[in-house]
């Protein structure tokens, strides 16, 4: 992997490629969305892949104040999901804690000239001076990219929205908060259907929350949601209007030998993603990534340790709240590899076929553009080899929570706090 670009930003809170990989969207803590577009490969430099340049920037969400509860609503973008492209314009859904918005991003590269009633600079012409009629013509202009909010889906969530997922029918999507999941139609903003509700009658009895949800990539009636207790429930919307009873329940039995007071916290699932094939799903908990076969509920088929060396440090990580960090994970286009982030700006990639894994670092200092990335290693034993980093010198402020993989190529986007790193493979 080669580092090709480092881009400055506000603290990035979500990263997502569109369906073709041509566009890369990031959302940040300030409520802004920045969309990057890949350059067309130039014919005179066939060996260099297109770079991503800023295509559009817009303010998606503003900070709000909930007057009833006297609390601020953060403008931070929690998730962005692209809609499949249906015409020349691109559409995406972006959400903060409470409100989801559908944005349409369209290009304008022509403008009309030769109006009858006004001048080129917009001033109205004196009607008595007009002696002939002319038809305005379309003239090329500098490309302008406009983003406009087409739908605003508001007031459906009491708790903080953690996930949105577009359904394979391309007409509906789901949004999940800590206790409820709602189903929306993309055209209808004043109504949504509640399909999961785990709120107990007495809030004092609350022991489990929803942490992530996703629609199945091919079956539009199926979705999954994960919980803070390390369980995943697969639901079929055909079974009932309210999917409180799951069709499948995925949970790995706990290893009694490694039980501690932190067992539940580290088992909390921070992200769940279906494979592109729709046959598997991947879950991320604090220390590992697990791949599940949808046909086998009692245990995952693959488990990958992300940073097992942190297991002995759980108490410190609990003290400084790092144990609550929500890492995301992603599949590559062919489902042969998975990627997730860690601390110290490290991120990990696992090849499912060869079972090889690699740790890389996203940092300006340690990698020059176009230089091959050097694999990193964290030393766990007493002896620290050269080039290894000891666990105690890891920087827990530098966490990579959001990563994205191009749907077709080996191009990855890694968000390290307020920098976006883009890595690519070279063409052979």
């Amino acid at each position, binding site marked *: 992997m080669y580092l090709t670009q480092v881009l400055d930003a506000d*603290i990035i*809170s979500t990263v997502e490629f569109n369906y073709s990989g041509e566009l890369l969207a990031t959302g940040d*803590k300030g409520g802004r969305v920045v969309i990057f577009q890949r350059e067309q490969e130039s014919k005179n430099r066939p060996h260099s892949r297109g770079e991503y340049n800023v295509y559009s920037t817009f303010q998606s969400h503003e900070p709000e104040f909930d007057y*009833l*509860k*006297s*609390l*601020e*609503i*953060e403008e*931070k973008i929690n998730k962005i999901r692209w809609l499949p492209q249906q015409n020349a314009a691109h559409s995406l859904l972006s959400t903060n*804690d409470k409100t989801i918005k559908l944005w349409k991003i369209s290009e304008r590269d022509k403008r009309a000239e030769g109006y009858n009633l006004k001048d080129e600079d917009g001033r109205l012409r004196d009607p008595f001076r007009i002696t002939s009629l002319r038809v305005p013509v379309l003239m090329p202009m500098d490309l302008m990219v406009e983003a406009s909010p087409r739908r605003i889906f508001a007031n459906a969530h*009491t*708790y*903080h929205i953690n996930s949105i997922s577009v359904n394979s029918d391309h007409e509906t999507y789901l949004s999940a908060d*800590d*206790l409820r999941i709602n189903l929306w139609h993309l055209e209808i903003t004043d109504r949504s259907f509640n399909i999961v509700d785990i709120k107990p009658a007495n*809030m*004092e*009895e*609350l*022991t*489990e*929350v929803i*942490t992530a949800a996703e629609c199945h990539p091919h079956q539009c009636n199926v979705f999954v949601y994960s919980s*803070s207790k390390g369980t995943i429930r697969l639901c079929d919307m055909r079974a009932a209007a309210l999917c409180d009873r799951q069709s499948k329940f995925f949970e790995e039995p706990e290893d009694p030998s490694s039980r501690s*007071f*932190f067992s*539940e*916290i580290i088992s*909390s699932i921070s992200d769940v993603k279906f494979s592109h094939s729709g046959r598997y799903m991947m879950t991320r908990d604090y220390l590992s990534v697990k791949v599940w076969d949808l046909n086998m509920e009692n245990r995952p088929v693959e488990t990958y340790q992300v940073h097992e060396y942190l297991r002995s*440090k759980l*108490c*410190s*990580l*609990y*003290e*400084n*709240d*790092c*144990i*609550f*960090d*929500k890492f995301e994970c992603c599949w590559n286009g062919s489902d042969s590899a998975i990627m997730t982030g860690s601390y110290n700006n490290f991120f990990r990639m696992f090849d499912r076929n060869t079972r090889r894994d690699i740790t890389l670092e996203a940092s300006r200092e340690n990698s020059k553009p176009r230089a091959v990335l050097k694999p990193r290693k964290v030393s766990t034993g007493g002896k620290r080899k050269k080039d290894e980093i000891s666990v105690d010198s*890891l920087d*827990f*402020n530098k*966490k990579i*929570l959001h990563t994205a993989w191009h749907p077709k190529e080996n191009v990855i986007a890694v968000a390290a*706090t307020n920098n976006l790193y883009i890595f690519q493979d070279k063409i052979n």
Partner: protein
Amino acid sequence: MFPKGTKRKFSDSGDEPPAGSDDVNQPSSAAVRMLSSYSLQRQSLLDMSLIKLQLCHMLVEPNLCRSVLIANTVRQIQEEMTQDGTWQIMTQALSAANAAAQCSADRLVATEVLCRQTEAAQGEPAPKPFPAVGSEGCSAEEVVVVEEEDEGVEGGVIMSTVSPQAPTAYLPSTFGIDPCWEEETGEEEDEDEDSEECASGSEEGDNDRLVEDSRTAEQVFGTFEIKNPAPSPDPALEELFSDVDASYYDLDTVLTGMQSAPKMGPYDLLESLSSHGPSPLSSSTSCRSDLNELDHIMEIIVGS
């Protein structure tokens, strides 16, 4: 990894070893030491968790997932301690301490040392600026408003100023569970009323505040003893404590001050609060009488 202050706190309670060793029946001193080390660790974890629950974001709604996970951890520890018999010992020691009216400064110092150690330890792996990335994993040690409810359960943090050390650890923060979540369901409630109450009361007598705290204790324990349900509260007590305390706004301003000086521990909070209004500690008589009330309530709840 574990704060040094814990040891001092343990010797303050001074009651663990006899019952502990009776329970476990270990002949070797090494085993006993290991056990007490485990108890120490567990205690420290419990304290840390309760402090975390107590401190939520001031202006933004607290992260529900984080609160639930911490609350589950606290519950887990409490269940284990109940099985050990440690929990009962703690509460008994508490009552004994109350009776002796030992709301002495050294207990509070122990808490302060514990918290300072906690914060110092927190500083090592994750130095500030934490809030910058706190959106993903909650900011630690940012002080909060614990939202009021219709019942007017509040002043949890104030509790720490007058109670002996153990209730300082348990009561305010476990109480913190409810409001942090309950506020979410406040959509149907008339929140305007609450905010009015909040805004109106600035100067409140100590007695009112302490009365509030006693009532808080009762509700907190009620929350906590899910498996061993507490006997239903005395209706007379309920009437007695029906006053709604509106010193919340005071708490807000105090806590705002705390946010900018994160190194303050509860002992400093005590000082700020006492400078803010009539000092609860200065009048030892009111302190003692309220502790007696607290003692009374605790007896009812613990059920002897």
